């Protein structure tokens, strides 16, 4: 990384670390949401941006992770840190299942995307029927007191949740940076660019694609755990919804698929703008559901038409940075 990039990164980190000091609780919640999408966007980016596999069913992993952690917490009293392992295990199993089925049978591109949607939808309706987990009525966590930090059980102030999400996002960033420079990064990008040529260079493409899917699923599982303990209620209709999957991919696509910083930038921009839009609409006295999604759709449309590589690459060039 160039000196300039490093300086900017440090400055950004400083701002993000200090944010709770000067931001009100509302702004903090928006920032937390932006970080949430930055994190899930990065997780998705590993599969798509690095390995070139388009998943439109990532809500599956958020949902499974959330329900796993929430279930072990409410039924067995197991805290989120241990519950996270259950969540990861479940999501890795699901991702591996999808990967094995898809890659063994040579399913790729649009068909693969459809397969991921089908799995998410199947699970959504399935969870509606699992009475033990609340069914369509939802699964609820007891909302703890919000005045002090209980990190072990993830109960606490908004600032605590902000820092947890910040840590996750920073961790994901570091992980992706390391992966990109490693053999995994090279092999994934080769597979993304031309899978046949990659095979001719000795790359076991099945194994490496599976690896990408599993890492992506495991990372997204943690987002699910956070979701469960932050919102304290889970509904299959909402968490496995295809709209959730689409919100996850928006950040990376707008910011720049395959780049390191793109998903973060995209998520920050979109969450901030969407929130501003919502406030604007509310201020005008209108109560119209769906405005935010129309906004997302329009942004997605404009980006895919005019800036298919996302906002970050040209911006990075302007700022004189690398990726």
């Amino acid at each position, binding site marked *: 990384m160039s000196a300039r990039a490093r300086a900017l990164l440090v400055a950004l980190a400083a701002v993000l670390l200090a944010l709770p000091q000067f931001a009100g609780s509302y702004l903090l919640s928006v920032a937390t949401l932006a970080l949430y999408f930055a994190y899930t966007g990065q997780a998705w980016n590993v599969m798509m941006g690095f390995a070139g596999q388009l998943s439109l069913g990532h809500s599956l992993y958020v949902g499974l992770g959330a329900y796993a952690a929430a279930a072990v917490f409410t039924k067995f009293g197991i805290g989120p840190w241990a519950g996270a392992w259950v969540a990861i295990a479940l999501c890795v199993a699901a991702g591996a299942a999808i990967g094995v089925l898809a890659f063994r049978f040579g399913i790729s591109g649009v068909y693969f995307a459809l397969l991921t949607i089908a799995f998410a939808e199947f699970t959504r309706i399935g969870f509606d029927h699992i009475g033990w987990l609340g069914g369509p009525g939802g699964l609820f966590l007891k909302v703890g007191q919000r005045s002090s930090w209980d990190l072990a059980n993830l109960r606490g102030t908004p600032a605590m949740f902000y820092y947890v999400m910040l840590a996750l996002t920073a961790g994901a960033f570091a992980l992706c940076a390391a992966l990109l420079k490693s053999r995994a990064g090279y092999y994934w990008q080769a597979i993304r*660019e031309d899978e*046949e040529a990659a095979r*001719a260079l000795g790359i076991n493409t099945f194994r490496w694609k599976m690896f990408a899917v599993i890492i992506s699923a495991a990372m997204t599982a943690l987002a699910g755990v956070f979701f469960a303990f932050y919102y304290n209620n889970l509904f299959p209709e909402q968490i496995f919804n295809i709209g959730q999957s689409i919100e996850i991919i928006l950040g990376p696509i707008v910011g720049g698929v395959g780049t390191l910083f793109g998903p973060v930038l995209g998520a920050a921009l979109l969450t901030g703008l969407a929130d501003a839009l919502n406030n604007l609409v509310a201020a005008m006295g209108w109560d119209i559901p769906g405005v935010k999604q129309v906004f997302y759709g329009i942004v997605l449309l404009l980006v895919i038409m005019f800036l298919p590589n996302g906002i970050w690459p040209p911006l990075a060039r302007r700022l004189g940075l690398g990726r």
Partner: protein
Amino acid sequence: MALLEADALVKSFRGLRAVGGASFDVEPGSIVALIGPNGAGKTTCFNMIAGVFAPDSGTVAFEGRKMQGSRPDEICKAGIGRTFQIVKPFAGLSVADNVVVGALLRESTSRGARAVAMGILRKLRLEEKADLPASTLTLPDRKRLEVARALATRPKLLLLDEVMAGLRPTECDEMVAFFRELNRADGLAILLIEHVMRAVMALAQRVVVLHHGEVIARGAPAEVVRDPAVLECYLGEETEV
């Protein structure tokens, strides 16, 4: 024992017989050219050796081990590298990164792979373009990149699929000189499919001629070119008008 032994290869596609019992060998350190008119089955043979698909019957043995039906990546690991007739660069990666991908097969670290990659690029006179995106290269450079990438996997046998196509005579001569040097210095065996006779005559030590999926002639280039059966398959029979 020959380095590569293709024995009685047969392959049909939807009832159309592309290759019907072709056999040929490549001795270690030798250069063999596979020639024949279009549709003769040359690329099909290549694809069977490279593991793109398995022969319907027949075997491919590399260093004595049966390899037919193996996956392309297993075949590369065993020591057979290949280039593609229509070049397939990793367009979104830099020239250097393209070769690094190949080098990572034998190197355990990215740094080691990069060093190997730069060395190969230097040999192919592509080092100045190392950091350019592969998509910006001209066709001759793309062909060189394709070869560089395959070489980075340290093959014992290199399969070249019409690598001279689209090159100007001077570029073609450069490539020929490069391969001859590689063959002389490193003992790299080469099996090439080629239509450009200039390259075949200059490079090949032995030639195998395919026609309608069968081997109709084999031998030194000078002999094969004079073989009446070969002339007939390229030029057609004489007919009374």
